[in-house]
């Protein structure tokens, strides 16, 4: 039997080992769930890798985070399904906060710059678009490499807060760290109470959930308590802000949350 060893980067190998399935290890996350694949066939050798598929993305995300931190920039990854109101919330956010904090916006969009155009003239220090269609067929999320390229076009010395508007999608963006300091999610009450249970990865990833479009509640059969119960069951620690980007309700609380994240990074101001 070959020797199993773990490298400093968390990956491990078994070298020259025909029956790697016999390797055992203590990490609970890699518990043996039964042998699904059998041994390597005759004439082949099984090599154990145990490499996190997101390790390359996470490495670049860490680089991005370091670069942002060194520049004194707080980055927030803003995620939601399409149409939940990210861009409208950003518009009101810029109108209220851009005079106190210099805000940059990195817009992830599959193919257009329509969202970025909506933000023009509202006081953002810089707006940059990252079209994800450069990849294979148009990615449904921003990953750390795309954000790295966007950061290259962002004047980091002239901003304090970077809002990364992810591609509208409740599934994929949550899997990819991009170097953000905090993650915010916009959820609209038109989406249904059960969404936290259907998209737990996204709801678990959020530090704050902005429950948007609450001005529509009188016209909907939406059960807010049921939604909040579902949210708590998948993410007990998420902060919740009830808001309407249209009427402005709750937007001050959201802006205060953003300002707090920035203050955490730069307690003495920037």
């Amino acid at each position, binding site marked *: 039997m070959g020797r199993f060893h773990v490298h400093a980067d968390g990956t491990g*190998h078994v070298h020259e080992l025909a029956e*790697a399935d016999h390797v055992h290890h203590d990490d*609970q*996350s*890699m*518990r043996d*769930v039964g042998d*699904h*694949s059998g041994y*390597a*066939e005759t*004439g*082949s*050798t*099984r*090599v*154990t*890798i*145990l*490499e*996190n*598929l*997101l390790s*390359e*993305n996470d490495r670049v995300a860490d680089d991005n985070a370091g670069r942002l931190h060194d520049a004194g920039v707080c980055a927030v990854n803003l995620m939601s399904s399409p149409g939940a109101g990210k861009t409208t919330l950003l518009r009101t956010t810029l109108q209220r906060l851009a005079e106190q904090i210099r805000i940059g916006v990195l817009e992830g969009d599959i193919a257009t710059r329509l969202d970025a155009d909506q933000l023009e003239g509202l006081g953002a220090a810089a707006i940059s678009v990252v079209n994800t269609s450069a*990849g*294979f*067929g148009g*990615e*449904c*999320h921003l*990953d750390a490499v795309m954000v790295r390229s966007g950061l290259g076009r962002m004047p980091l010395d002239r901003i304090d807060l970077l809002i990364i508007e992810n591609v509208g999608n409740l*599934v*994929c963006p*949550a*899997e*990819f760290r991009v170097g953000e300091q905090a993650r915010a999610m916009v959820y609209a009450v038109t989406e249904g109470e059960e969404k936290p*249970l259907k*998209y*737990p*990865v996204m709801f*678990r990833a959020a530090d704050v959930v902005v429950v948007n479009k609450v001005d529509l509640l009188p016209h909907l059969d939406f059960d807010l308590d049921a939604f909040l119960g579902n949210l*708590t*069951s*998948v993410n*007990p620690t998420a902060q919740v802000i009830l808001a309407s980007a249209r009427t402005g309700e709750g937007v001050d609380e959201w802006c205060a949350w953003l300002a707090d994240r920035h203050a955490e990074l730069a307690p003495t101001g920037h």
Partner: protein
Amino acid sequence: MHELAICDAIATSASKHAHGRPVTRVTVQIGHLRQVVPEALLFSWEVVSGTGDLEGAELVLEQIPAVVLCHDCGEETTLDLPILSCGACGGFEVKLLSGEELLVKSIDLVDA
């Protein structure tokens, strides 16, 4: 549909560790809390494994159940739903033991 991006990462990892030797099988572990659709992943693999070192390599998926350990009563629960609570006492003070895996577990290489 991030399965294609994940397949790309699987292929990159497998190729790196194969050092040019032909790969016959790649085994990955995917936790139940990951929103990866097995059919979509296998379909994407057909695209990614069409050429090079990985041509014709089989992708084997091991799905890892989500298991939590309760801080209050010490019981372990395998989750059917992504609700992080204890099946024995109903408490929410639980630690996730497994279910978030997204790993290349092993590759099978043709002997030199």
